Structures are given as C-alpha cells and as structure tokens.
C-alpha cells in the first residue's frame, strides 16, 4: 500500500507539469477560449514528444501504453493547467475505443497518428433531446450496400473542425454502431457552439453521409457496450483531471486568503472562511484518493474498477464544483472579473460535472453495479 505517487509517477507528473507551464500557461488558456481550433500546436507537439498523446495507444502502434494510474497523473496535471485541447477525447477515449474494438487495419491507420500528434480522432456521441444513455442515440444509419447512410445531428463534439475523424455513434436495426466519419467529407456540416467553459465544441450535422463497412468500429449492435465500457474506464483519468483543477483552484484561493486583508486582518484569519477552506482541502484529498484508487483498480483489472471509476468521477467533479464555488465567494468581487484566474476554474468545473455522464447517470451506474451484483 502506498497512498502517494511513487518515484516514476512523480517523474510523469513533473514532466507534464513542465510541459503545461511552458506550452499552456493561463494566458494561453485565456487566448484559446472560444477558439475555433481550440488547442495550441506547441502543446500538441510537446505532449506528443513526451509520449502523452500515445498514453492509451499500445506500443506496437507507437504508443506509450501508460498505466491507468499514470494516465490519471497526466490528467491531474492537464486539469491543474486547464490545458486546452481534445487530449482526453482523442488520446484516451478514441484511442481506447479503437484499441479495444477496431480492425487491425483501422488501428494501423489511426493509432500511430494519435500517438505521434499527427492525427486527432474524437467521439461524436450526444444529441439534442437525447440522454447520455443508449436510448439517447437517435441518429440513424440506413443500411445500403457496402455500408450505411447517416443523417442526424451530434452535439458537444470537441474540436471537430480540426479532427481528422469523428467516431459517430448511430442506430441501426441491429442496435448501436460506431463509424469513423471524416468531418471534412461531403454531407458533414460543422457549426461551432459556445459553452460555459469556453471550450471548443461543435454541432455536427450529418446529411446522408456515406460510411463504408470498413469504416465501422466494432460490429453493429455492439457499439453501445464498447462505448460504455470505454467511457466507463476513462472516467478515472477524467476524475483526476477534476482533482487537478480543484487542487489548483484551492491553492489560488488559499494564497488569496493568506494575503488579502479585510477589517484589518487576512481573510484566512476569519474562522468561517478558514473552516470552509479546511472542508475544501479535505474533499480535495478525498477526491485525489478515490481517483487514484479507481485507476489502481483498473490497472489490477479488479472487478469493482468500473464502479470505482464512476464514483471517482462523481466525487471529484462535485469537489471541483464546490471548491471553485467557495473560491469565487472568498475572492469576492474580483473573482467575478475576467482578469482573475479563479473564474476559469469555476466555469470549467460545472461543465465537467455535466459532461461525460452527469451525476444522476453516474449514480445509476453505481447503484446498478451495487444492487444487481
């Protein structure tokens, strides 16, 4: 048992922290808010060279095949920095999905590029009026000889304009399927959407888009179980992202509380604020532990890993939201201005809580696992 990072993990942490400090300082984060591309080529290059973009790619495809714990370490740093870019979507979700289920040809075509930073692949999952469950996928694929014709609308697709392929979830007579779709191809229309977190996301409209059977990832009917399993695991590093954000937001707030004076003493000398920060600190400790616990369980292949990953995402995002809410309150008026950093964390925290399964969806997963066992 070891409830701290070991030396190797510390090395990964320090490396990613250095990369983010160099290539994703907060002025870059600000500059990239609402940006149509949504990431910095310099950061992409640095992450690729460090093997981070290949973190979930098997070594035979040029990846670094990090452990889940290491991926959590990476994401905690990305979260601390709020590093802009679709790294989770492409290098974890898409990479794991392809590695899990695509044909070797498809894997050969895309995984090395994801790892070396020359390719971006992102999922196109959610739809307006649809839930984040299997029943939420209304986009239909009509079977035609040699493939499908897809029509419908996807929403919240990260960095779609610079993606090389989208992993589109769609319904067929056999059930949900997943196909690689070129966002620059015919019939695909992208419209940038703006969000609370000022991240880069698109509405993607597919109008009679042809996908060949070779573009399918997994068999029709298996799409949801593949996607659900992939996202279910990826919740662990995502939780670590929230932990990193919460930890940094807490540091910013504590620093401010130590120096800013009111009524002749530092804010942190007011017991009500000091106690609120103590609660936040405790929650951040807990969130960190449960995120790494989930990652560790995934690394061990433990049967409770899926439940733990959902618990970690639930708890870490709630912590991130709570800590940034307290942060805003303690910063006071300046926290409401764009000039201060706490608002960057505050806005991202709530969006992250809603994204990639919201609290009720996570709770349902946890309860299903707990009560049907």
């Amino acid at each position, binding site marked *: 048992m070891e409830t701290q990072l070991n030396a190797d993990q510390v090395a990964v942490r320090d490396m990613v922290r250095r990369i983010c400090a160099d290539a994703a300082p907060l002025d870059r984060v600000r500059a990239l808010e*609402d940006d149509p591309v949504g990431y910095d080529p310099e950061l992409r290059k640095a992450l690729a060279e460090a093997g981070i973009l290949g973190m979930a790619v098997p070594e035979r495809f040029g990846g670094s095949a990090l452990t889940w714990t290491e991926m959590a370490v990476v994401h905690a740093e990305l979260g601390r920095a709020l590093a802009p870019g679709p790294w989770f979507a492409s290098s974890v979700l898409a990479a794991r999905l392809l590695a899990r289920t695509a044909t070797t040809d498809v894997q050969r075509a895309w995984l090395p590029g994801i790892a070396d930073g020359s390719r971006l692949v992102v999922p196109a999952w959610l739809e307006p009026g649809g839930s984040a469950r299997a029943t939420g996928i209304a986009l239909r694929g009509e079977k035609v000889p040699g493939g499908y014709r897809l029509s419908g609308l996807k929403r*919240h697709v990260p960095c779609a304009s610079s993606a090389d392929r989208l992993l589109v979830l769609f319904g067929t007579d056999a059930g949900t399927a997943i196909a690689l779709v070129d966002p620059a191809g015919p019939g695909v229309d992208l419209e940038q*959407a703006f*969000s609370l977190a000022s991240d880069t996301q698109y509405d993607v409209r597919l109008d009679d888009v042809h996908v060949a059977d070779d573009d399918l990832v997994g068999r029709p009917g298996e799409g949801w179980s593949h996607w659900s399993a992939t996202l279910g695991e990826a919740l662990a590093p995502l939780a670590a992202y929230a932990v990193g954000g919460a930890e940094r937001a807490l540091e910013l707030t504590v620093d401010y509380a130590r120096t800013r004076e009111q009524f002749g003493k530092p804010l942190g000398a007011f017991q009500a604020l000091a106690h609120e920060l103590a609660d936040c600190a405790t929650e951040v400790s807990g969130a960190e532990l449960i995120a790494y616990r989930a990652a560790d369980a995934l690394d061990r292949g433990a049967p409770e890993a899926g439940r733990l990953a959902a618990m970690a995402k639930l708890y870490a995002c709630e912590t991130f939201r709570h800590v940034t809410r307290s942060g805003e309150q303690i910063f006071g008026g300046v926290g*409401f*201005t764009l000039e201060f950093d706490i608002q960057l964390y505050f806005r991202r925290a709530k969006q992250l809580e809603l994204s990639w399964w919201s609290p009720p969806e996570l709770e349902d997963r946890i309860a299903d696992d707990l009560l049907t066992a």
Partner: protein
Amino acid sequence: MDFELDDEIVAFAREVEEFLDAHHDPDVFDVTRENMAQIVDTPARRAFLKKLAERGWLGMTWPREWGGQERPGVYEYVLNEALAHRGGPQTGKGVGIIGKTILAHGSERLKREFLPKILAAEIEFAVGYSEPEAGSDAASMRLRAVRDGDGWRLDGQKVWTTSAHFADWYWVGARTNPDSKHHGITLFLVPMDHPGITVKPIWTMGGAPMGAERTNEVYLDDVWVSDDYVVGEVDKGFQYISQALDLERFSMFTFGPIDERLETLVEHVRTATVDGVPVREDSGTRRRLARLVTEAEVARLLGLRVLDASMRSERDGGAPPTTEASEYKLYATQFSQRLADASMDLGGPGTQLRVGTGSAPMRGRAESTYRYTVIDTIGGGTSQVQRNIISRRRLGLPRSF
C-alpha cells in the same frame, strides 16, 4: 398573519402589468442580462424610465412636498418586482438610496437641484463606496478629501462602480477625517464628466457573449467639490451609507429575477422530453423541483417580511428591519445559486451551451444564470457580512470578526 396584498395594491399590480404589456420592447426588457438587467445603461432604457416618470411611478413614497405621493413602500416593491421579473430597468438608486438620503439629510439646495430631476428620470447616478482595499469593510474607505477653500479636493480610486460609464453624477464617499474610521467619511455629489475623473472598464464573467458586461474602476485626480455638493454633514457619510444599505440590501436583490428563472425551469420540466420521455416523469427531477419551489417560496416570504417590517418602521418610526433584510439577502442569494446549479443539472449536458443558443435547454439561460449568480452572494454585503449582522444583532452573539 396575512400574506396577501391589499385589494388596492393588487389593483395597482394589475395596472403595472398592463402598462408593461403595452410597453413591451425587447431593447428595454431582457432577462438574459440577468442581474445587469436592472441598470439604465441604454437610451431605450432611459426613455422607458421617462415613461414611468410620466406615469407618476417614480418616487411614489416621497413626500408630497417634493413631488411624491406619500404612498407606502409596497407600491415601489410591486413596481420593481414587476420590472425585475421582465428583465427591465429598475426605478433604482435615484428614487431609492440617493433620493431618500438627500430627502433625509441633504441641503435645500441639493434637494432643489436633484429631486425634481430624479422624479423626471433625467438623471442617472453612479455609486462609489468600494475601494481596492475596502471591500466588505466599507468603513475602511481611503479615497482622500482634503479641505480646500469652500470645498474639498478628492484624490483616489474606487472600484465596482458599475454605472460609471453612463451615469451623470457620482455619489461618492471620501475620507475627510483620517483619525476616525467610522466618523470620518463624507458623501459628495460630483458630475461624472468632471475632467479629473477617469473611468476604466473591468470586464466580468457576465454578458452574452461572455465578457460583454462590465463594471468600472474610477480614478479621481484632484477633483474639487464645492461645499454645496456635500451631502448632509461632514464626517457622517458612513452613517448615511449604513442607513441606506439597509434599504439597498433589499431593493438591489429583487425576488422577480429569481422567480422568472424558476418559472423558466418549471416550464422546461413541464414541457421538455429526453429520449422522447417527458422530463416531468423523472422522479429525481420532480423531487428536486419540489424542493426548489419550496425554497423559492421561503425566499419570497422573507422578502415580504422585510417589506412589511419596513412599512411598519416607517409608520411607527421604529428601527429599520436590518436583520430581516440580512436574512432575506442571505437566503435569497444563496437560493439563487442553488437554483442556477439545479437548472444546469436538470436541463442536462445541453445547458453548458451559452445563453442564446437556440437548441440549448431553456435557450441557455441556465448557463448565464450560473455565471451571474456568483456575484449575488458578494455584492451589497457578502453572505459572511450578512451572517455577522444576524449573529450579532438578532442573536446577540459577541463580535466574531
């Protein structure tokens, strides 16, 4: 115990609603401006306020001597709540804290110069209390006023003067006596276009697109103000400010916008579907909504109690309802944040889309509300300041800060 407005007030409320229906104008009424909807920062909004003035709805509580109608405060409450509910500009600081302070403490000259203009909606004020080093602790104000001839010379900096870039006059506190923290502040009226005044924008998380709303820093550089524009007595400014704050705490935080947001959410739950299933059938959603409407009613009632108590104190000459106002402000603004958070959750992931996005649940209102309500528990006295007031003045606990 009686929680219904009297018949003539209900009739007045109806009259107000008819008037507002007749004067509907999306340039004047815009709920998506959330907390900023109350300010009179555009020509259209100023023009609308003039119509309210013509109707005789400004300064209804003022003495007849100064053009008022000596009506009870409930008339202003009804009018402002109706305006706030529609995202319209409020009758505001002029007839409120500034007009009332001038009425109570101002010289004859100030009354004659300002009160008629206020009633005619010909003048907008900006209020300058906060300073970079004086946030919750208003009495620690440092902007300096030094005696010079028949007046004072003001030098220093203010922050959070939201109306500075469009107001006509600055209602500003300055330190006239450095030796007494609480008895050393004086209130001045300064024309906003004084050459010694510089206004610099501070862009906030508010607005659509985000960052479109502003507040301001105001720099006063060697600004001479004649004694004629001193409000009331020298060194008594902090007392005037505190008295007026009891009022502001209440009127700056109308319940109308909260109610409007709740209606938006209830309407969403009532009508939206997810995966073809009505949202209203989800048990978790129903229960959370039931709690929200309950807490909203509590917030509204705490506000009604301030109204009732303040009318009683006006009538009987008692103390203003300070702790009642603090309880309302504390509860309503925290509820407002819970409501914002719940609106995000109950609307689902689509609520992350920015306000105005047509396909977003509630047209993105959850998002803008989540951003804006941050300031509710800070401005007009933070939640911590309200709790200090309640614990000391209502509960009689010792000072704990």
